[in-house]
């Protein structure tokens, strides 16, 4: 019950933050230099079209009325209209959601087990050969820019080895095999940096943990070393990891923009990127709002996971 109450409270606390973001978006949109009509319609629109737009969006109305309108429309799920596609933004987001979430999800799926495994290994073999090797690999992983990695992969795998196609996306729910061949390289790109960072965190967290008094107690009572490592230390070492994993949602969202562009995946990242270039502001704002919400949910889930793992956190 305590945990539920805590979860509830954390979710409730998102609301003011979202509110702030939404308001910030509004302010930014209207603070941008330039004529909103032109922004929406491109350069030299016809007067009639312009008037239409002004009327329907209420650009001639006072700012606070526009704001209120904006909030109301948001509440109804209306994120505006994309002028490039001439379709509601919400529809666009709905369509492009899947590829982004699939890539992100797979990235986590690949990165987490590897990172944790390597991290624990590194901590157990602290300062021995295996540890140094994995640390080096970790450093390499973090230092490699993801766009470079993506391009290199394409260059080697597609161009030279002609093994995998470099662009496109197929939903894994429709055709798993083809989907996989298309997703391998994008996921590797994203997962590399993620794994590297998580692995280093796991390793240092574990090393810290293994020094704890209660680990000495476990050993003193004849608990086998493997159990000490995994059951006793890891559980405690998990705590900082969970935080990082939650925050990585934002890193992945950012990375997805690049990866989707390079691998021509029709996801939200690509949509966002294109909308900036095309000055399709309603799309840009809509996607930003979506990403923010996603991130906030990630943060809250992290907090809840934290409270679940560590009984000392007072969530009453």
């Amino acid at each position, binding site marked *: 019950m305590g945990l539920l*109450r805590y979860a509830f*409270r954390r979710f*409730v*606390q998102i609301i003011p933050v979202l509110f702030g973001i939404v308001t910030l978006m509004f302010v930014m949109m209207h603070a941008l230099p330039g004529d909103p009509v032109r922004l929406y319609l491109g350069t030299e629109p016809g007067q009639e079209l312009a008037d239409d737009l002004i009327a329907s969006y209420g650009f001639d109305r006072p700012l606070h009325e526009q704001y209120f309108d904006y909030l109301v429309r948001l509440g109804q799920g209306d994120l505006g209209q994309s002028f490039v596609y001439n379709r509601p933004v919400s529809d666009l987001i709905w369509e492009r959601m899947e590829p982004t979430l699939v890539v992100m999800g797979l990235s986590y799926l690949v990165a987490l087990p590897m990172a944790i495994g390597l991290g624990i290994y590194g901590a157990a073999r602290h300062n021995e050969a295996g540890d140094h090797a994995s640390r080096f690999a970790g450093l390499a992983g973090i230092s490699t820019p993801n766009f470079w990695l993506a391009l290199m992969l394409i260059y080697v795998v597609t161009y030279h080895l002609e093994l995998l196609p470099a662009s496109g996306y197929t939903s894994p729910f429709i055709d798993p095999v083809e989907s996989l061949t298309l997703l391998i390289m994008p996921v590797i790109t994203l997962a590399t940096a993620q794994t590297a960072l998580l692995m280093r965190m796991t390793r240092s967290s574990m090393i810290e943990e293994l020094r704890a008094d209660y680990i000495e107690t476990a050993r003193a009572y004849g608990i086998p070393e493997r159990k000490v490592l995994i059951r006793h230390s890891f559980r405690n070492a998990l705590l900082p990891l969970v935080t990082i994993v939650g925050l990585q949602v934002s890193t992945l969202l950012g990375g997805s923009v690049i990866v989707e562009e390079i691998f021509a995946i029709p996801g939200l990242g690509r949509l966002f990127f294109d909308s900036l270039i095309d000055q399709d502001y309603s799309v840009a704002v809509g996607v930003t709002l979506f990403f923010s919400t996603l991130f906030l949910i990630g943060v809250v889930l992290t907090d809840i996971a934290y409270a679940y793992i560590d009984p000392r956190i007072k969530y009453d």
Partner: protein
Amino acid sequence: MSTIDRTDDGGPSGTNRTDDRTGGSDREPLLEVAGLQKHFPVNSGLLSSIRFDPESGPFPFRYDQSSVKAVDGVDFELRPGETLGIVGESGCGKSTLARTILGLEEPTAGDITFDGRSTDEIPEGEFRKRTQMVFQDPQSSLNPRRKVGHIIEDPLEGTDWPRSDSSVGADTEVRTEDLSEYAVNATVDDNADLVVDPVDGVATVLLTVRPVGDPTEKRVETADDIAVDLPWGFDATVTVDETERTIDIDVSVSASKADLRRERALELLEQVGLKREYYDRHPHEFSGGQRQRINLARALSINPDLVVADEPVSGLDVSVQAQILNLMDDLQEEYGLTYLLISHDLSVVRYVADRVAVMYLGEFVEMAPTEELFTEQYHPYARALLSAVPNPDPDQPGIESVIQGNVPSASDPPRGCRFHTRCPSFILPDGFSAAGYEAYDELLGAVREQELEGSDLDAVVETYLGDIDASASADTATDAAGDGGTIPPGARSDARQAVERALEGDWTAARERLETHESVCQSATPALDPAGGTTSDVVGKTERLTACHLEVTDEGGTREP
């Protein structure tokens, strides 16, 4: 009052202070604390305080304002030159009390009066100059990145010490050698009191004037022919008028404030038993005992009136403890300090304190002159505390009694006397046996919570009081042979009526009826009063106070009222 040798090398002066710091009973108290409370909210912030409560009103939420009552009504006086020891176990609130008195925490209620003025009115700077704290953990209370000498100087810097007092005059005392033909005049700047301690309102600089080299050979013609011996920190300009045969000496303070502070820090190091060379070292190079000496040096640097020491020796080895306590004692005499000493260790307190107050769950339960308290304790907790201290001497008694149970939560302290839940001398109302009262109390508790088990009158009475035998005669106090003990018949019938009320929904009436048989230990909070009731133990400034419903008998010892 300091031991600084002023004739040879001068040395910086302390702040002006009266010579007589240790007071007799006619002195005003230096510190007065009245009704002091410090409560900490249990929940941090608005959202965390909200509780889901289906039974509360239209919105099923309520606001939980419970708080931890760390200090819950403390009164005492502290006279100049005295040492008051506050003893208690962890969680009793003694550290919070110390911090609140020093202004590190804002009191929830109550007054603190320092030297006649309320601490609300005293500007913080002044208050900090006159009070200092010595903390418990010598490791963490010293910044590992700084030199020890600098750490000691911190309070000096903070109060911009030294500052010249304009009400203090400055004068010179000149000694001449072989200059009988000359008239020597010396003047000194008004701020000489920066370096030299004033005596009777005047800072006097001693100087010796003599000719350079052999006086018979040369006549004194210029300033170069004159040497002036000055105390440390001063410089002199000499003008010689050959014709008039006068020598004018103009003395000024040459030591910078930094110099003065450094010199004081060096002196302090020596006073606490360390070496001057240690000035440049870092805390980690010292043992625990030495670090605590550094702490003391720092606290003393600005010559405070009041020093609050929170567990000053608890982390140290026993032999080192003795050394530090000795030092504190010496410093108290030397500087005329007033100590408030917090400790959980009775032996420590016994060694240094004039009076002792025993603290439990936010309140003082007994206060007495040290030796009197150690000879005999009136409050059961004080007694338990003392008898729990192990004694290595096999010819003396060891640990005699062990009080059971744990300290109750400070956010929900027991009613009446806070110690009653664990008190071996709990006052049972007439006719009750211990077990009988326990059962009765459980019923009372249930009624308070408005949660009775069962809904049938007889069944409920049976559940709570079933094991109890009703004693036949009204004045019996002996246990019957029954399982649970005895309660007087009046109580039994009242209980029955109370349950009846309760089942009808009138919880208030039920509670009130049951409370008529409550033990005084639960119904009334004992005040910290002079022990003995009618026999007053007040002797001059010493009093024996105890917060217990037990009475002190004339032969000593306690009995039920």
